[in-house]
C-alpha cells in the first residue's frame, strides 16, 4: 500500500536554529497537512495545503512556520527560529480529496530543540 514518507525520523537542533521537516505524500493525493503532537498530548492541526497554497492554518502556525511544495513530490515544513516549545512529534498527512476523506499519516519526525 502506498505510504507517506517523512524524513528525518528524529531531528535535534539548537534553539534559534532553522529546521526543515520533509515529507513525501502519496503521489496522487491533492491535500497535504502538518500536525504536531507534544509528548503525551493530543494531535494538533497546524496547516493544510491544497493547490499550491495554504487552505487552513491554526493559531499555532505563526510567522515562524512556513510550508512549501518545492517540486511535484516533496512537502516541507520550515520552522525559522526554533524554540524549546517546538519540541514535538510532527506528522505529515495527505488525502486524495477533501477533509472528509481518510488521512494517510507518515510515521512522524521527532523534533528535539535543545
Amino acid at each position, binding site marked *: 500500500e502506498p505510504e507517506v514518507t517523512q524524513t528525518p525520523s528524529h531531528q535535534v537542533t539548537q534553539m534559534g536554529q532553522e529546521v526543515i521537516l520533509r515529507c513525501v505524500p502519496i503521489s496522487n493525493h491533492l491535500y497535504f*497537512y502538518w*500536525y504536531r503532537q507534544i509528548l503525551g*498530548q*493530543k*494531535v*494538533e*492541526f497546524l496547516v*493544510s495545503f491544497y493547490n499550491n497554497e495554504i*487552505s*487552513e492554518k*491554526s493559531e499555532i502556525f505563526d510567522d515562524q512556520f512556513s510550508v512549501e511544495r518545492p517540486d511535484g513530490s516533496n512537502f516541507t515544513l520550515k520552522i525559522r527560529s526554533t524554540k524549546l516549545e517546538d519540541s514535538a*512529534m510532527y*506528522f505529515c*498527512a495527505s488525502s486524495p480529496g477533501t*477533509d*472528509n476523506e*481518510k*488521512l*494517510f*499519516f*507518515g*510515521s*512522524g519526525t*521527532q523534533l528535539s530543540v535543545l
Partner: protein
Amino acid sequence: AQKVTQAQTEISVVEKEDVTLDCVYETRDTTYYLFWYKQPPSGELVFLIRRNSFDEQNEISGRYSWNFQKSTSSFNFTITASQVVDSAVYFCALPQDDMRFGAGTRLTVKP
C-alpha cells in the same frame, strides 16, 4: 464550533475484557464524518474507521465495533476480548476544514 470530547483519559483492563471508548462530538453541520485513529506505542497514527452521519448502523470489524448515535452525538468504540496488542492511544476525530482530534484515550491492556 466543532469539537470532539473524549472524557476518558486512561483506561486499564485485563486481557480478554471488553472495553468501550467514549467519543462525544459537537457540530452544526447536518452532514459530517467521524473518524477513529489508533496510535500504538511506536507512535504512528493508524486509521481505523470513517463513518458518515447518514449511516447510523453499528459497524463491526472483527473484535472492533462502533456505536454511532446521533441522538446523543456519540460515536463510541468497543473492543471485544481485548488483547495486549490493543494497548494504544485512541483518537476520535471530526473534520472541520481539517481533521480535529479529540484528546485521546490511553488504553492499557494487561496480560
